[in-house]
């Protein structure tokens, strides 16, 4: 059992996520977290990706410079798990990149952008539910969706660009470090 290695990989990715989140805090909704979670799931499988997503989102939700997330945290975690599933299914659908820069990289970026759209929709609806509870109505939810539209655009564009550029590099790097993808996936505890 490579529990220690599993834990260290999870810790590594989680710390990378938190550090890069703090570094990019000035840019609203532009984070490396999504790409890192996607890359971890692509490289090491569903379980490690899920652990990374849950741990990073929990820590960020509690220690965020924007303040304690409160009741929205479970929705953030659920949204982040989308990237895990996306990464896992991408690993099954597309082979690992052979080069850092190739045209298939935009597939990763596009997938991350789709995940970002769904993530934003889900969190905006969650925000509307929390703010209007128990007097929830559709128009109010649409209102919350509209007010978050500008951040949605930033998130999607950011994930598309960073995902296209960074995700293949991360996946390539980890694949070389762990020699092949099969070994990397056996690390799962």
């Amino acid at each position, binding site marked *: 059992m490579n529990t220690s290695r599993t834990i260290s990989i999870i810790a590594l990715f989680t710390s990378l996520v938190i550090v890069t989140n703090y570094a990019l805090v000035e840019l609203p909704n532009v984070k490396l977290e999504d790409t890192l979670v996607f890359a971890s799931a692509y490289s090491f499988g569903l379980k490690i990706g899920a652990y990374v997503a849950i741990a990073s989102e929990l820590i960020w939700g509690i220690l965020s410079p924007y303040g304690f997330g409160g009741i929205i945290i479970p929705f953030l975690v659920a949204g982040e798990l989308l990237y895990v599933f996306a990464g896992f299914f991408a690993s099954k659908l*597309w*082979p690992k990149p052979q080069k850092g820069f190739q045209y298939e990289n935009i*597939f990763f*970026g*596009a997938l991350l*952008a*789709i995940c970002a759209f769904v993530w934003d929709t889900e969190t905006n609806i969650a925000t509307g539910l929390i703010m209007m509870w128990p007097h929830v109505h559709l128009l109010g939810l649409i209102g919350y969706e*509209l007010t978050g*539209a500008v951040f949605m655009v930033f998130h999607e564009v950011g994930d598309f660009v960073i995902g296209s550029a960074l995700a293949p590099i991360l996946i390539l790097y980890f694949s070389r470090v762990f020699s092949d993808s099969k070994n990397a996936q056996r690390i799962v505890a």
Partner: protein
Amino acid sequence: MQTRTLYGIMVVLIALLLLSSSLAIYYSYQNQQLASQKNTIQNELQNASSKYSTLASEYNSILSTYNGSVSSFKALALTYSQASASFLSLSKEYNITFSLLVNALSEMNTSEPAYTNASKTLTSLWQEYTTLVAQYKQLSSSFQEILTNFNRENNATLLGNIQPISVSLLTSNILIDFGNGTYHWFNETAIQPGWNFYVATLVVTNGNVVATWYPQYSAHFVTGIDGVFNNNAQGEYWFLWTWNSTSSSWQVASVGADQLMMYNGSIYAWTYCLENITNYMPECTPH
């Protein structure tokens, strides 16, 4: 084309579609916000325009009322000026009439019936004139007050051609002492320039003066005032006095009533008392 590539292209297309949708949602939201702001601003502008119209209408109404007030006031001022001019003309005619009447009375034979009528007419005419003067003074005072208030409230100066006429009359103080403790002061009696004390006595007693005219002396010898006559048997006569303001005392007049001229602030007196048979001086002094 490989299936993986096909899936990849589909994913890219879906991502582009979602990105476009996000941009469309964002654009639509911004457009709605701007439209809402525009409507709000339009409503505010309409309200402001409506309020402006109301204010402008009220202003025009007030301005019209003000102009009307100014116009009315100017008409009032014109009327006042005309009234003042009429009064001035009337006053001049009165003065001319009085002068003629006074001159006539001063030299008329007192035994003639015309003298008695004229002396009584003089009094009534003079009273009418002084009443008219008092009324004009009141009118002038009221108009000046209106003018002052109007100028103050409207921050304007509307003195233009309005020239109030000075109508102050000369006044004098006359005492008639009947010698038995009864005396009558005629204080601040209105007089006309050119009057002598005889004429003034006629006016204040409503013509109840009995006198003999001596044309060679151009003087009247007063023998009775208000029904009290000289009494040769008792040696009681009417004596004429003047007030000496320097010594603050009465002095027996050295001239007759026709030679004593009235002036503003003059003080004269008649006393009825005994005559000193030695020096023919009165044995009394006015109260």
